[in-house]
């Protein structure tokens, strides 16, 4: 995987991609991250409730795009310093660490990640 920017990556066919989300400073407030991959609801791996882990294998051909859409929620009463730490990883990563943070102060809480297949 090769990083273009925090929300765009170049990937290889059959490469395994992992997006791991760590909710931080939420204390007793609910956290919620929902995701969609290529038009279908993307559910996290089992037993990753406290740090949802999303995985997929690049199945599309060269020049095609896998699109992951997310929505991160900060419920009423959640601490002002709460944030989601999102780490994106693949194989033989270039330009990483890769990923981003979604803070409570972020304006856009529904980022999309584009994975362009280059080989």
């Amino acid at each position, binding site marked *: 995987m090769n990083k273009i920017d925090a929300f*765009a990556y170049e990937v290889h066919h059959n490469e395994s991609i992992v997006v791991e989300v760590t909710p931080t400073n939420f204390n007793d407030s609910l956290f*919620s991250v929902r995701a969609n991959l290529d*038009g279908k609801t993307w559910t996290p791996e089992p037993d990753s409730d406290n740090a949802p882990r999303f995985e997929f294998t690049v199945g599309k051909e060269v020049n*095609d795009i896998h699109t992951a*859409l997310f*929505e991160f*929620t900060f*419920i009423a*009463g959640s601490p002002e310093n709460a944030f989601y730490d999102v780490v994106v990883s693949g194989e033989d990563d270039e330009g990483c660490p890769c990923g981003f943070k979604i803070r409570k102060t972020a304006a856009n809480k529904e980022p999309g990640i584009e994975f*362009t297949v280059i080989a």
Partner: protein
Amino acid sequence: MKPHPTIAAVLALVLCICPLCVAQTSVDCDTLREKINTLKAPPTTEESASTRQVKNKALADLYAQLLTCIDGEIKAVTDIRNTVAGTNAVEAVDKKLGELRDERASVVAELAQRTGTNIANVAASVSAAASTGPGNTFTQTQTNFPCVPGEAYPDAPPLLTDIVGKAALDIATSQNPGLSGIPNMFLYTTIDAASPTSSELLRGLEAYQYLSETARTDKQLGGSSNSNAAVSAIEKPGFVSLLGLAVEHGAIDKKTDGTNLTLSTSLYSLYVIGKENTAETYQQAGVLNRIGAAATFAVDNTTDDLANARRNNLSQWSVKARLFGDRSTRSKQFQKKWNDEIAPLIDARLEALGAPLEELTESSADYKSLRTQVANCLRRNVVKRTEDTDYKAATTEGRTKMITDVLLSLLRSNVYNRIKTGQLQLSDKIVTAVETRYVPNLKAALDNLKKAGGELDKAIEDLKAGPLATFAYTNFRIPTGSDYSETKFLFEQDKGFFGPLKLTGNVGLSFYHRPDHTLNQDRVRDFSTALSFSGTSDSPFTEAENKSKITYSFVGRYQRLFENRRVLGRTADIGTLQFVTEIPLFKGLSLPFSVTYSSATEEEKKQGFRFNFGTRLDMDKLFDLLKANSNF
């Protein structure tokens, strides 16, 4: 037969970019650029048609060679980029890559013009011939949609301006090193351009409001009800806020009212010191997140609050443990509601965006190509804009507008115009899908979420109204008397049996550590019980965005102070009735007021009224209001 010039030019192009040709023409890119500039220079004398034709063919040949040469440069710079990834050098390399990609797109356009073929065909020929295997990340992408300069998009649909504005604000405030929300921007622009009907339908949709913070939770001030500065005769079991405040502001929260300094913390906030405060850590802490502690000190040093936090000034310390009732949004009950009722609606909206984007992307190679190249174009131009001097000198608002303008204008010229003019053709089937499925599905998802937002606010309100019971232990240190401890059971129920009024009850028993028998003291100091009914109403004095309400409560308290038995001038039975209100005014300022009737005091058997009033400034609230007013 004489070959047609177009066929000859395309033939020359394909021949020149084949690997063999590449090997034979290892001319330096700069030399090619110079030769092209020389040939493109206006002629000094009038040219004949045949001369122009020869020149045109020569230019086409040179552009074809230059294209191959640029691809080689891109590959070389990409290798450099991969080597310097993660260092400061990457920025300059990325900039060079961007310039090369722009130049490549211009060369492809020139070739298309001079060979009379369309850009897509040139790109396809180039792509097929110039592929240099895995690792070359750029030559494999079709380059049939070069990044063209932006143009005004004054009537952009609300959903598009919303997501662009959010992404721009995040860049202006340096939230992340990247441009978020490109897929959504692309989809909204496509829908706007697809047909007049889809454009109209899209413009009928309101910008999406996240299901996020809408209200402020109650704030329980530290110290027990009988500390010197307390205006209320009843103590609330407000443990949740203690935890939140302590962890948010550091392990220990500090509060002072001029007379007392209260430091509060929770066992969880101490447990989390030196660890990441993640959801995992919270769960591991178990019962620790149910226990809080506070200490109150008399203030004699008004210049340095923390200097008062010493043993001699300690007037009381307390520990609170939540027994039952969970008002947190992480409670099982609330999580179930979220998972069953709210999360599916968020999923539905994401699907209403993701599925159309997927269908569009898979509908044609051109759409894929457009997505890839426009995304690069947006990212590159945003980075470029952030390097401008006027951007660096601008305020957050100014920067946001600059980035918004860049994004909207490029989306207009690179996506909207290309679809509108047919340069990128959407099939009739796709246009029908946009009108009959994509936008209606998105509308339904947004409507459902809006409705759920109201229900969610109510659910949170109901959660805060549930029963809550805590056990409190308080140790009172009396400088001129006997120290004692108090145990209390605190209960609270909002909007229950007593309708809109909140019921709070306390039952407590206190003990002397070393009873002074000369002062008629036994081991048991007193028994007390209190009951309060409180409510709220809207304040006519606050700003529109300030949701603070007038609060009021009626409190009845009974105390049996055993040492007052058989003492002249005193009574063991002390009854108190109290009315307490706090009226919020503006900018976080409020007026607390209380009137209390007592049948006696602890010191003398004398009934009477007592009035307390003052002003309170809530700095958190003031900051929130200032932030709201500045639209930050």
